[in-house]
């Protein structure tokens, strides 16, 4: 049965979390980072807990990251992948929730193509639910790992200028970043083709840059989003080549910046579209640090949702090598 800890029952999004809760997750992730550096990468924090990774949408990085986090905390995990028509998904979701409930699992990690799907599940089962991305709504663990990576490198988040670049309209990563970063005192901007950037984003308290040159002049940190091929097919941008030419992050563009910019990307990258390889592989890219931090952040979330206390994380994971 589920526990209720410092985060409440579920992690559906960052919009509903307090600043203190977000800081608690980031701080709890710190001691968990070290587990992945050990020879034997396993601690008994979630021993006896059963976790279902319920992925209705294709995902490699996020699913594997959650699975490593779960296994390194000694949870028993099951992966369910499902794809199908949107209506079939909706029907499946209700029944899946009931079936999971009947199997007395402890936690569900859900990825779903419909905005609101994680909260929908969370409202219907007593298990803890972690949102691994729901439609264009939120992807809270991505937002958290982005913040942890920024904090690692810059030493702080408050006062930094962070610009999210790309397809803002369809991006759950953008939304989770905006909510989290604003709560931690950063200034946030969004930049992208106006077809992919609804005007109402301005009402969320962020700056809006239609052109990336202005964003580069302004920002300390760029979080570069993937441009999906479907967006071109749906006519939001005329071509990927043109997208790269106007909004792509290249070293030529970055050289004009008044300061070195930290470069993040949630992956998977389209090299040569939204980001050029020399930037992705360059000295200011923390793209792989994000991946490493993803495991630690997800361990922290699972630990806290299972009732763990932030200040006891160090003790819970044990000292050195087992």
């Amino acid at each position, binding site marked *: 049965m589920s526990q209720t800890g410092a985060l409440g029952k579920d992690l559906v999004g960052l919009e509903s979390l307090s600043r203190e809760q977000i800081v608690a997750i980031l701080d709890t992730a710190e001691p968990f980072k070290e587990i992945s550096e050990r020879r034997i990468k396993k601690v008994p924090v979630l021993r006896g807990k059963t976790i279902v990774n319920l992925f209705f949408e294709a995902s490699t990085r996020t699913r594997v990251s959650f699975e490593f986090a779960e296994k390194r905390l000694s949870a028993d995990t099951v992966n369910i992948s499902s794809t199908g028509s949107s209506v079939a998904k909706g*029907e499946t979701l*209700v029944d899946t929730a009931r079936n999971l409930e009947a199997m007395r699992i402890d936690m569900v990690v859900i990825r779903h193509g*419909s905005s609101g799907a994680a*909260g*929908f599940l969370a409202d219907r089962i007593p298990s803890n639910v972690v949102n691994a991305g*729901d*439609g264009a709504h939120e992807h809270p663990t991505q937002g958290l790992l982005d913040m942890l990576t920024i904090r690692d490198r810059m030493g702080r988040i408050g006062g930094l200028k962070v610009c999210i670049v790309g397809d803002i309209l369809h991006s759950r990563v953008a939304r989770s970043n905006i909510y989290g970063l604003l709560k931690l005192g950063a200034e946030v901007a969004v930049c992208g083709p106006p077809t992919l950037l609804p005007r*109402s*984003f301005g*009402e969320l308290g962020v700056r809006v840059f239609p052109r990336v040159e202005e964003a580069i002049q302004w920002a300390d940190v760029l979080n570069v989003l993937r441009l999906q091929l479907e967006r071109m097919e749906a006519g939001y941008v005329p071509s990927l080549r043109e997208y790269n030419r106007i909004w792509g992050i290249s070293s030529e563009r970055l050289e004009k910046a008044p300061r070195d910019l930290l470069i993040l990307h949630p992956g998977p990258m389209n090299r040569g579209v939204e980001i050029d390889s020399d930037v992705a592989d360059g000295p200011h890219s923390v793209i792989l640090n994000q991946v490493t931090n993803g495991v630690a952040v997800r361990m922290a979330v699972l630990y806290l949702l299972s009732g763990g206390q932030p200040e006891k994380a160090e003790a819970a994971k044990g000292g050195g090598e087992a």
Partner: protein
Amino acid sequence: MSARTLLRGGRVVDPSQKLDGVRDLMLADGMVAALAPELEAGPDTRVIECGGLVVTPGLIDAHVHLREPGDEHKETIASGARAAVAGGFTSVLAMPNTNPPIDDPATVGFVLAEGRRAGAARVYPVGCISAGRAGERLALVGEMVEAGAVAITDDGSPVMDSGLMRLALLYAQAFGIPVADHPEDLTLSARGHMNAGLVATRLGLPGKPNAAEDAHIVRDLLLAELTGGHIHLQHVSTAFGVEMIRQAKSRGVRVSAEATPHHLILTDEAVEGYRTEAKMNPPLRTRADVDAVRSGLGDGTLDTIATDHAPHHYDEKEAAFTDAPNGIVGLETALGLVLTHVVDEGILDLTAMVERMSCQPAKVFRLPGGTLAPGSVADITVFDPDARWVVDPKAFRSRSRNSPFAGWELRGQVRRTIVGGRTVFEG
């Protein structure tokens, strides 16, 4: 001589006679026989005491989806007609987006026959504008009217082809029926699931902008002006749309328009939490739009209140937001919602409410009813204006329960619904 019925001592509100006062109402042979401050009950007269109750011409809902044929798990003509009389409606207009659609005289006849068999509210079929609701060429409009259709619409879908809409507005004039349209430019809205705006952005849901509705309202007004035809604009939800209708009326364009209780009361914030009971089309809009729809209803720009009663099975609504269908049920909550949130909030007085819910729909669609003048049909709604009740979807006569108003406390409860002189509902 058949039995007579006397409704005694009720407050009779009948805008068609500019009447608001305590009257006795005598019914005989399905008609209103007499209306006077005091009437004698004969030995064969059944007397129904109406002291403290409001007696009005029967309410008419010109926009309901009865789902039959095709989706009887959501609603049937019989269950919908019973829900109607429980909500005080004596007549409803059944939209043609059924499966198969109501696009030929045989289906019109089926809906009429099922409506009569139900023996509750009068059910008037509305035929399709286009054959198969495909939006390509006119349906058998003349034959459907001969079979009993009272209007045409492709409701559920807009008519995207402006040329077809022009032809419909011309052709319908031969039969004296209005062309009703669900105004929406799908090229602007087809990806949307709620109102475009801040709430949609926050929830990560694709939006339908007001411009999608505005563009088609303007188009329809231009075509009505061009053709001289009568356009009836369904469920108007935008501030700009209301203003365009107001201006068109002042130019003399033959336009009538309706407002739904939900667009008069709720904003897109009701969607918060991905509540599928608040998902409908047109979507719930912003406060500025709600205020404009309210003032449009108040000043008569919007002629009628219609529910857009759209039953869906709970399985279909119990889904992720983007997977859930549009629409809410409305027949059994409309009167209470309007009394509590439109009349009590000063938008309409009781007379104007009866006007919008009975007289105007009768006039727009040329139906019997909408008046209690002696010699007219005895379609009558009797309600207790002071009774308070709590909306409980489980108690609905409708087969569906998809209402965003569950748990709301409302004023005004239907006590008796009379159709053709016969009591078809007592509450």
